[in-house]
């Protein structure tokens, strides 16, 4: 289990990560979402022991990750901007990682390389962006690491490769309790695989919850009334956003669905329905509340 407590990272005069507390359970997929510059990559680099927090700590199974070699053997970072040794082939990279990851599984590596139709003896420099990403993920999975930190894990992958990687992740989670921590902008992709999500914004964390709890706790309401209602007219509801076009009101509301419907029905609507929110809509709503409303530049 990974626990971060008040981890903070400051770059010059910019607070990249600001006192974040999270808990990432073993055997689940933790999705890290956030706006641009929210600090996702920095957060992952601190988890992987690349950066040292200026404040707070990162503990994996109760131990500090910084310069902790036995612990780092259980972690693997797949950054957004991939790097391979110059002139390296997948096979040579596998040999390289095998020398530093004792649990590196050559059989698994060979199986995956063949499965993804990659040539192990071909220079990685000649690969396409997606193939490079595949290679990096195959190496990460084959390393036998318990924690895989993926920054934009599916960036550049075709749909088939994406699904395959997800399946492999799920399989490894079941078989050996692997824990992927995935940072991405592609929320639809995360929605399929994540058990738990953390939303970062401007260095801080807005929430860190199970995906189901997130989805159950926030709803979109469409309702029509025979009179005009303002936000203040629903004091019992935690309304994040409200739009009114004529008699039709659209609200994003936090809370229990039954409680919300009960409150709306009490005002005798002409029509009312509660819709589930996608992760993307939740992201937009939550960040808008925090002032991240760049849509207004367009609309």
């Amino acid at each position, binding site marked *: 289990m990974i626990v971060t407590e008040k981890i903070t*990272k400051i*770059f010059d005069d910019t607070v990249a990560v600001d006192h974040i507390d999270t808990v990432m359970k073993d055997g689940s997929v933790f999705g890290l979402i956030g706006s641009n510059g929210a600090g996702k990559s*920095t957060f992952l*680099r601190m988890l*992987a*022991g*690349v*950066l*040292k927090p200026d404040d707070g700590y990162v503990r994996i199974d109760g131990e500090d990750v910084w*310069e902790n*070699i*036995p612990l*780092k*053997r259980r*972690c*693997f*970072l797949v*950054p957004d*901007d*991939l*790097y*391979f*040794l*110059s002139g390296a082939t997948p096979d040579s990279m596998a040999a*390289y990682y095998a*020398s*530093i*990851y004792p649990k590196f599984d050559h059989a698994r590596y060979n199986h995956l390389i063949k499965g993804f139709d990659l040539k192990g003896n071909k220079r990685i420099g000649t690969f396409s962006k997606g193939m490079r990403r595949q290679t990096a993920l195959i190496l990460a999975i084959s390393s036998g690491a318990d924690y895989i930190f993926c920054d934009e894990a599916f960036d550049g992958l075709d749909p088939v490769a994406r699904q395959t990687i997800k399946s492999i992740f799920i399989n490894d989670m079941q078989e050996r309790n692997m824990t992927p921590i995935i940072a991405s902008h592609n929320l639809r992709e995360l929605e399929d695989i994540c058990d738990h999500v953390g939303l970062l914004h401007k260095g801080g964390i807005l929430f860190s919850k199970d995906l189901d709890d997130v989805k159950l706790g926030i709803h979109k309401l469409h309702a029509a009334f025979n009179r005009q209602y303002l936000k203040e007219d629903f004091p019992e509801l935690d309304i994040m956003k409200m739009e009114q076009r004529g008699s039709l009101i659209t609200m994003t509301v936090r809370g229990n669905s039954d409680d919300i419907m009960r409150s709306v029905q009490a005002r005798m609507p002409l029509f009312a329905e509660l819709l589930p929110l996608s992760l993307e809509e939740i992201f937009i709503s939550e960040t808008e509340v925090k002032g991240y409303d760049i849509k207004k530049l367009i609309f």
Partner: protein
Amino acid sequence: MTLKNLFSKAFWVRLLRRFTQFNWLTALWSVVLFFAFPVAGALIFSVNLTRENYWTIARVSNTILGQMGFVCGATILVAILTPNVFNYLNSRRQLDFYHSQPVTRKELFWRNYFVGWMSYVIPLTAGFISEMGIVMLLPGIAWENTLLLLKGYFACLGTYFSVNALCILAVMVCGNRFISLLTGVYFCGAPAMIFGMFWYFVDAFSSTFAYSDAMYDILGGITPVSYMLDMIAFKEDGIFNEAFWWTIAWTVISVGTVFLSRFLYLRRRGETAGKPLSFAKAIIFIKYPLTVFAAWVGGILFEAMGDENVIWLLFGFVTFGIITWCIVSGLEKFEFRNAFRGWLKLLLCTGIFISCLLGIFVGTVIFDKRTTRDANITSVDLDYINYYESKDGGTQYSCYDLKGIEGEEAIKALNTLIRQGAKQAVTGGNIRIGGNNAVFVEEVNGQSDTARIALRVRIHTKFGSYTRYYKFDCQPRSDMLKAIKEFSVSAGAKKSQTETIFSQIATEASHFAFRPSQHIPSAEKMEKLYKALAEDIKNASPEDYEVKALGTIDINYSARFYSYMENSERMTVPVPVYPSFEKTLALISTDMLKEFSLDTVGEFTETEYYYTDDESYKKGETAGFDAGYEKGKATASENLPYQMPDLSEYMLSSDMYDQGYYEGFKRGYEEGFSIYGDPYTEGYNKGYEEGHKAGVDDAVNGYDYTVPEYKYDGTLYTDGYHTGYFEGYDAGYYGATKE
């Protein structure tokens, strides 16, 4: 990282893997060394061995030291390049790659540090061994010469160690490849730059402190490069000399620098990758000294260009300071606007700098005053070195032992020796007479080399010792008239007599120069003039010179004999020549303008050589010349063909005396054979007479250049006739035309 981990198998496996990533550097360095060591060595040695069949120690040493010097120079470049192994620190994606791995930062540091070493040492050692093989396998080369190589090898390792340590420190301090390269160069050169400026400043107003032992002690090892060059240079003062202690000092400094780099590596923040600096406070050690140094350089530059005007000095100081400040500030944050911040700090820094200069100024002036006071001088040592550098790079030294001469007597002796030095420098070489413009052309060692005179004055005072050097060149080819006039002034001889004599000699010489066939100076007259001249200069007493202060050279000489150390200029002092009159007249009488050797002037018989090898060589050369001369003379007189006796015994000998004998004999035989070949002279005179007649006839009656028939039968007579005819013809033809 524990010692156990350092030598673990996994560490070495990873190290070798990393090493293979830098095979381009190893390959590049190997190619350079391949040509610098075995190829250059084999080439130089084989070519010279074919030509000369023997080696003097000086020549082998020079060849080896030349090669080692080149390798040392290239080492600096490699030492600056190898910190490239740490460049992943400057790239975020590479940093993520390496620092996310389960490898400690300590191991990463040592791994990359050793990879740099391997890239350098493996090719160097291979090249060194191959060069050793060549040196040891060649015949006639003493095995002791390989020790020179070994010394150079360790000097290279030391140079690499120190320069590399400073450059790695620069990589740790900076976050950008280009900036770290600049900073590395700055770290290596900064001490020398700052010391150089300091020395220049002190030298401007102090005649002793700038030359004090303390200053020279610092100068010898101020940079890793200077101490290494000092280390491979020949040293007479045993193992525990200054170079040794500087080696110890630099080893300690370099070890400290490496561990400081390791310390900084562990504390280096990953997010600084790509930024100019990874430790912002390091700018204090870069920005301010560099700005002050550049300002200082600008001041000196403009002062020199502006004829030492203080206004120009200030202009250069301010403009260069501002420009450097702007550049460094711009680079500091990759933002030019940064140049307009922190001016107050710069002003404060400038104030501190000026205060330091004033403090140094006051201190050195006090030191200067004390050391030049007679009562404070405990003793004065003088070394007089007269040496000439031959074409092949060999240098021969002679030395006058002046120990025991102290005080004012030393100054007087010094002044005397300067005159003698000028004469000795010339008489150590050969004289050639001829040409249309240059009357007396002086050459040293038979080549167009340089004769130099150097003086070292060591003054011991109650407050420390200091040294002054005076070096000056003798003009290898000097016009007699000009040379005589110059010398008459510079030597400070009694002008009233000397100038008259010079004038007469010059007149005679000029006539000979322009009409060598028509105006042959009287032997008796010339000899008389030269003797008078020599006597005049010889009698010039030291009282003729102004002794300014004990321990400083006569002011007239200081003005004439510019010092290298003082002005960093190399000046030429023309000197007159003193030919051997017997031989001169013999040549003039036959118009055979050949090279000949001079007798050593008697008054310099006390000359001593530093090296016994050179002394043996010189003795052998003299003996060989005498023997060869007699042999050549006898051969020519008997009208026998030119046939050099078999000298292979001497030629192949490793004994320095024999080698000198061989060289001397060849020259002596050549000269004896040429000069005393009566048949040749007879033929020459006959040919000259007939040629001259034909030339005059053609000039008067119209050009009808005809060559008389003669049968060349390989005898000296026909050879002389042929040469004489053509020279006589030219002399007659042009002589009659001018009239």
